[in-house]
């Protein structure tokens, strides 16, 4: 979790220093979701994420330097600098992408799992999305699909209470994500998403069930976004007291307290924290030194047939 926190704090610094040029969506305060879910996936398992995907991507094993380069739009970024934060992806570690369109990855995840089934592979697919995503059609279509075809997908609703500036509760009918999943015959569990151990346990169990071929599973994880929606959002739409109160529930502090209580020396925790920051600062420095990709990359990887250049023949 410290690695995620450090990465995003540096990404925010990059934003202010105009090294990061597009929008970034920090997951500060939500790290227990990434840290609790993703380590339960093997490297060859597949993960799909959201616009708020740095943490998930790191936790799936992506290289922070390549990620920082991507956020800076530099050569050697995971996507060669062409995607940026909202399209961060590392197919080498089974991370099939953040997505700039809310809920779009839900149907893509269903299809990834469909391929797993067709190819008789043993992989599982995990798809993380926000609480705002459950009101889009693909949520219904993708969950229905996964259940109908009995596919190994773990759907994870990372519920931070907000969709941009809007409290999702006000725009969500009924009891919410789990009730919807259950109405589709999908076993669903609700967990405190800031309790990394609880998330870990629930994810482990659900993923084991997937591997046993029981069809899709659903986790609803309650958390809170401690920052603005984007790096530029002051989040003036919620009272300061609310945010302050939620800082007390910071998943990192909670985990640290647990570890301390379990006898972990405070020094070793500080060490972990310092190592995380050192790693991410190094990534930051190295990324800023990396050049932008060569301009001809703008015309590469478009498609095999047909030349993208307007003047081409």
């Amino acid at each position, binding site marked *: 979790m410290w690695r995620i926190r450090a990465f995003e704090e540096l990404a925010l610094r990059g934003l202010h220093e105009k090294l990061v040029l597009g929008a970034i969506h920090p997951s500060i305060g939500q790290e227990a979701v990434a840290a609790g879910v993703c380590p339960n996936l093997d490297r060859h398992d597949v993960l799909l994420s959201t616009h708020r995907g740095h943490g998930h991507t790191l936790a799936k094993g992506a290289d922070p330097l390549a990620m920082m380069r991507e956020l800076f739009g530099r050569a050697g970024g995971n996507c060669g600098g062409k995607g940026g934060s909202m399209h961060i992806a590392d197919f080498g570690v089974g991370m099939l992408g953040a997505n700039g369109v809310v809920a779009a990855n839900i149907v893509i995840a269903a299809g990834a799992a469909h391929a797993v089934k067709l190819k008789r592979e043993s992989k599982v697919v995990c798809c993380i999305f926000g609480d705002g995503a459950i009101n889009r059609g693909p949520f219904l279509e993708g969950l229905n699909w996964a259940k109908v075809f009995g596919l190994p997908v773990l759907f994870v609703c990372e519920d931070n209470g907000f969709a941009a500036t*809007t409290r999702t509760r006000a725009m969500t009918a009924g009891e919410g994500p789990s009730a919807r999943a259950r109405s589709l015959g999908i076993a669903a569990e609700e967990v405190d998403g800031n309790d990394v151990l609880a998330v870990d346990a629930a994810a482990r169990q659900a993923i084991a069930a997937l591997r046993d071929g029981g069809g899709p599973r659903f986790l609803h994880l309650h958390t809170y976004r401690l920052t603005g929606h984007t790096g530029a959002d002051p989040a003036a739409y919620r009272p300061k007291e609310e945010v302050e109160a939620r800082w007390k529930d910071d998943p990192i502090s909670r985990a640290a307290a647990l570890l301390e209580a379990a006898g972990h020396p405070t020094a070793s925790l500080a060490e972990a924290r310092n190592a995380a920051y050192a790693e991410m600062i190094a990534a930051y420095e190295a990324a800023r030194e990396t050049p932008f990709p060569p301009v001809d990359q703008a015309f590469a990887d478009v498609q095999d047939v047909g030349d993208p250049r307007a003047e081409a023949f």
Partner: protein
Amino acid sequence: MPFMTYAEASRAAIAEEMRRDPAVWAVGEDLGRGGVFGQYKGLVEEFGPERVSDAPISEACIMGAAVGAAMMGTRPIVEMRFSDFALCAVDELVNQAAKARYMFGGQTRVPLVVREPIGMWRSSAAQHSQSLEAWYAHIPGLVVVCPSTPADNKGLLKSAIRCDDPVVYMEHKNLWGLEGEVPEDDDFTVPIGEARVVREGGDLTIVSWSAQVHVCVKAAEALATRGIKAEVIDLRSLWPWDKARVLASVEKTGRLLIAQESVSVAGFGAEVAATVAERLHKALKAPVKRLGAPRAPISYAPPLEDAARVSKEMIVNTAEGLVRT
């Protein structure tokens, strides 16, 4: 005349029309806090949360509900945030809104305005940078508007709200902060379908729309220093588009250059070029010419993003080439 930004001009247009007609209302995600670009700021305070309504993240339902609400006598303004997200609601716009009046034999009308901000805007990458105005120009039943100035954004948005047909209203994200003089008059509107001659000239006609117009004007200024007088026409709307004005200009200049931010292949520039070539073949002193984006998604990295732009230099060089032919 007061000075205001393109975003402020749109707010003024909506406020005036909402005051004028109680049937007008707006709906979209985050509108209660002013919208993602602040283009609804202050409106919920004046008109309340029913008429400036938040919405779930349900683009298909936002658009579809607007169709139903429009058929029932209200005049919704639909906010899609980025035109890219409107791709989640294409059935509702193209199969329903655009066709309802016709396929029901004139029994109903669908007076709605869909705001779909377009264009490249500081490293927004492939899913937040598209300009698909050509798509909607191709769809019978839809009106397509692409304002380029604060005054036009007020006057055209007011006309769009008053229009009884579904209007795809495409503001350019890079223009939100652009300032300009904007008439205060409540009755000020800009008619849909009339191009604006931004600059007169007799040597060649440059046709453009949306943010690209401003690049064309800079190019025309540079051309003027080289003795070339370019007439710059801002189409303002792509359907209907002001064929008469464009043809009259090209008849005068004998040369046509079209500059668009959107992908060149099968873009609206092709329609303009083809129309002029069909009708003014003999009057043309040089071939018609288009400049547009390559057929590649938009990149995040700035130098790659820039590779998709039609720059002032490209316009100047191409225009010179045409005139020196």
